[in-house]
């Protein structure tokens, strides 16, 4: 630890001299107000510090103290249902202390240190047993939905358990167990600290196996993401990035959600805050908030803390992954994070790369996404946990050649491309079916075939082929008009219209439509494709397209999104209708000819 004096202030960057023992990425307290900052460059005894709070009113001569610690957060029970700023200050506590505005120099711990938690030790755990990092000590029911598994933190080395944990109510700093390690006796509490920029250790990574089911038809059926996978949602403003992120946070089947609002709108975070406690988890009926941690560093909050917020979020996610949970991180938007890096880089007078972004932008982005994955966690149990990351990107003007988009696409496996033309037509989610992709089809094929339907892969391929064909036909129509198309091609256009309007289009605001289970998604697509196959046959037998458009079953198909999950038998009657009505159509046109 060392003490120095400010010599320069330039926006969120300050320079202090006399910092002889300072280390890179160490946290420093700046001025009498104790503003929080982090050392990001060292020149001799001069330390360059990015300050996480507003620096107006600071000047040369004021005191700077380094704390000897890198930027760390508190991990332990009490994380769930919290809303934090970028450096883990709980915003509700800040509100209680400081009122409506975030004033400077507020110092509040990330977790409630007074609250006592009911702790149940792992059965059969006795003193004298060997124990190591990641081993289970006991459990706390943190919320109705989530059991908090108390593990030996990775900061404690392996050794022998000398004091076994006992049942009881503990505050998070109370010692619950003691471990004899080669470096002395380590006390284990419910809480430990972890530096956010360091990934938490795992035993090894595994390839993804299961889909992260989101209930969003265009995603699950056409461009699925796996549990432990990575996805990126770029798009211009107004294309619906945030709504998609909200939908995934609400409906995806991850057990823990960490939602990072990085440099986004204040009201949007308020929306999440007010809505999540009212929404219930479809599986358990409990409020969704019980499985959620929110990080809100809105656009008007200090820019340096925005840079830290994505690391704070993913560290919390890793902590729950270590317990063996399926965790999903939504980061909205990573462009703001990149811009924060650019701003600091500019202040440091670094040589800029593309568009003024620092040259290390791609490596920082890659490092962040690589903290995702399905992994065997530390500990003798061999638990597996997954950590999925879904990052929104806000490229200027929706231009995908933006350096942040390009750097992200290099590392993520799923690309959901939002198109403003679709958004103008209020086709939501505005995910383009032509440019998006998912590289998880092969990894997930077995799961879909076993859990949903044998021919899931074929149905998907057929749908994609039709949509591709539609794009070609539309080019043609633009040149020669719709009348010049063959009847078969016109049937294709009618079918793809159904796919678009009755399947891909999904309302986030309708109670029944907002979430669709996989089996229903399959039945919906199957119905459309059945009708298509039969219609192609019919026009082959010279049934006029006009007749096919009048079939009453089309009306039923357009309403199938409202079929309740328990009434899936209705799809059988739709299938029956298709058979009967097409047979009728054929018969009629045959009679017509005679």
């Amino acid at each position, binding site marked *: 630890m060392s003490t120095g004096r400010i010599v320069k202030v330039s926006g969120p960057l300050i320079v202090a001299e006399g910092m002889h023992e300072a280390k890179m990425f160490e946290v420093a307290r700046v001025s009498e107000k104790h503003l929080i900052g982090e050392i990001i460059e060292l020149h001799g005894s001069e330390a360059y510090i990015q300050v996480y709070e507003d620096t107006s009113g600071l000047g040369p001569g004021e005191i700077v103290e380094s704390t000897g610690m890198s930027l760390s957060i508190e991990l332990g029970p009490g994380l769930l249902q919290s809303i934090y700023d970028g450096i883990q200050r709980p915003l509700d506590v800040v509100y209680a202390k400081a009122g409506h505005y975030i004033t400077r120099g507020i110092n509040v711990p990330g977790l409630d240190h007074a609250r006592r938690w009911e702790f149940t030790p792992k059965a059969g755990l006795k003193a004298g047993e060997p124990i190591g990092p990641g081993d289970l000590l006991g459990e706390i029911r943190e919320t109705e939905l989530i059991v908090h598994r108390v593990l030996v933190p990775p900061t404690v080395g392996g050794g022998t358990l000398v004091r076994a944990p006992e049942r009881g109510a503990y505050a998070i700093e109370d010692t619950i167990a003691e471990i004899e390690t080669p470096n002395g006796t380590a006390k284990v509490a419910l809480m430990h600290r972890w530096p956010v920029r360091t990934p938490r250790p795992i035993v090894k990574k595994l390839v993804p196996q299961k889909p992260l089911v989101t209930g969003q038809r265009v995603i699950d059926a056409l461009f699925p993401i796996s549990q432990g996978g990575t996805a990126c949602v770029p798009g211009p403003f107004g294309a619906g990035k945030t709504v998609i992120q909200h939908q995934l946070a609400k409906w995806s089947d991850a057990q823990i959600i960490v939602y990072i609002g990085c440099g986004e709108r204040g009201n949007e975070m308020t929306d999440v805050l007010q809505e999540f406690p009212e929404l219930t988890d479809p599986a358990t009926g409990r409020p969704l908030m019980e499985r959620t941690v929110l990080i809100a560093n809105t656009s008007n909050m200090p820019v340096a803390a925005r840079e830290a917020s994505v690391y704070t979020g993913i560290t919390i996610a890793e902590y729950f992954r270590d317990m063996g949970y399926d965790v999903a991180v939504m980061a909205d938007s990573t462009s703001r994070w990149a*811009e924060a890096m650019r701003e600091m880089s500019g202040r440091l007078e670094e040589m800029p790369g593309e568009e003024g972004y620092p040259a290390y932008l791609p490596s920082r982005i890659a490092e962040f996404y690589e903290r995702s994955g399905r992994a065997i966690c530390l500990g003798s149990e061999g638990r597996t946990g997954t950590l999925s990351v879904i990052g929104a990107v806000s490229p200027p*003007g929706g231009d995908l050649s933006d350096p942040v988009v390009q750097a992200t696409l290099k590392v993520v496996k799923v690309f959901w491309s939002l198109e403003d033309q679709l958004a103008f037509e209020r086709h939501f989610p505005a995910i383009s079916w032509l440019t998006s992709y998912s590289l998880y089809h092969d990894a997930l094929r077995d799961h879909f075939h076993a859990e949903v339907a044998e021919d899931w892969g074929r149905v998907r391929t057929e749908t994609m082929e039709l949509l591709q064909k539609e794009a070609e036909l539309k080019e043609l129509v633009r040149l020669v008009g719709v009348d010049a198309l063959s009847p078969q091609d016109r049937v294709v256009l009618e079918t793809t219209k159904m796919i678009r309007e009755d399947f891909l289009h999904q309302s986030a605001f309708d109670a029944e439509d907002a979430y669709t289970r996989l089996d229903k998604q399959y039945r919906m697509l199957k119905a459309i494709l059945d009708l298509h196959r039969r219609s192609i046959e019919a026009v082959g037998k010279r049934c006029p397209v006009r007749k096919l458009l009048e079939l009453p079953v089309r009306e039923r198909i357009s309403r199938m999104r409202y079929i309740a999950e328990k009434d899936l038998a209705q799809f059988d009657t739709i299938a029956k209708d298709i058979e009967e009505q097409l047979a009728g159509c054929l018969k009629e046109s045959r009679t017509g000819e005679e």
Partner: protein
Amino acid sequence: MVTEYTTIREIAGPLVLLDRVDHATYEELVEVELAGGEQRRGKVLEVDHDRVLIQIFEGTRGVDIAKTSVRFLGRGLELAVSPDMLGRIFNGLGAPIDDGPRLIAEKKIDINGNPINPYARVYPKEFIQTGISAIDGLNTLVRGQKLPIFSAFGLPHSELAAQIARQATVLGAGESFAIVFAAMGITFEEANYFIRDFQETGAMERVVLFINLANDPTIERIATPRAALTAAEYLAFERGMHVLVIMTDMTNYCEALREVSVARKEIPGRRGYPGYLYTDLATIYERAGLLKGAKKGEVQQGSITQIPVLSMPDDDKTHPIPDLTGYITEGQIILDRSLNRSGVYPPIAVLPSLSRLKQKGIGACKTREDHADLSNQLFGAYARGVQAKELAVILGEAALSDSDKAFVAFADAFEARFIQQGQHEDRSIERTLEIGWELVALLPRSELKRIKDTYVEKYLPREGDV
């Protein structure tokens, strides 16, 4: 202790570099006295050891190295606030410039403000009726929202902003309201248009004006929206008023910011604008909304609704200014040149326009139960009509299918009857929805897929009704 320095070392653009300063702080306010005794104000942009970089709001013309002196005031730029501000005119830095009596300040507030804690906000969901169908029906404004108008040269954004200010009411509420108007770099005539409009409608006593005209100092503009929002925050959250803030033209503000950035030789982002433009704009736009009340579940009296106006250089929506604005604000109202050319007022391009807070501001008890479905249908049908029209341009009308023709007819009627209205026509939301229903009646019933059947039964005019 106030010390005067005459140690100016360099002057470049709006910036002054000072040497051998004992103690200066970041963002501190300074007073500059020119050789002739003229007083100017500036603020500290950077302190490096004993060197201080200062930005002079009124510009550096006439500032010399030898005789000009600089005093550090030990505080940031502040605005003196009081309820008597209503009806008064201030300059871009917040000093009164009308002939009114001296203002007795209730207190002084730093114009930079503090960020609102997202936890302390209340989600806006109270419908504001602007009386303009294209806004109320399709891109609904709610109290506490920030909804910019994206315009361009020669388009009637001033008329539209003035009409909104004139007509904006909340259904069934008779609370106290105020308008804060910030003019940045606009012409005398434009500013006068607003002032005259406020006077004619008798709204002037509820208005606070901050005026920085095109010929006023450029750098002063950087302070103007902040001064205006400080006044708005005071009126809204300390005096319990519902404040509508109109800021025009944000493009001039951004250009002033660029001027300073270039003079500082900063590494530019896109089109020469500084890399921190997003953050800077956010500290302005985010100063809007509603706050939690003292008791749980209560809303504090008062609100700030923002309508910034910006002109898109070259009508380009992807220019950094509209682009970054769109990423911060809760939607946008885009004006369209071709609609304007064909005589449609207000020329609102409804398809790319958007109100993000619409979903929770409309529906039963707020506007009407069928509002969401109907507006969805209108959007979908208009989009299809516009596409069909494009097709007709290439292939000729004859090549269109019957249903496409119906959509073309719909799109034309939609522009002529729904979007088009008078500058003083104040349509109720019921009337707006009624016109909407009359228009969808032009379409085949089977195309009304986005509206629930019950609403179609209840609201669709029967044949002969229209």
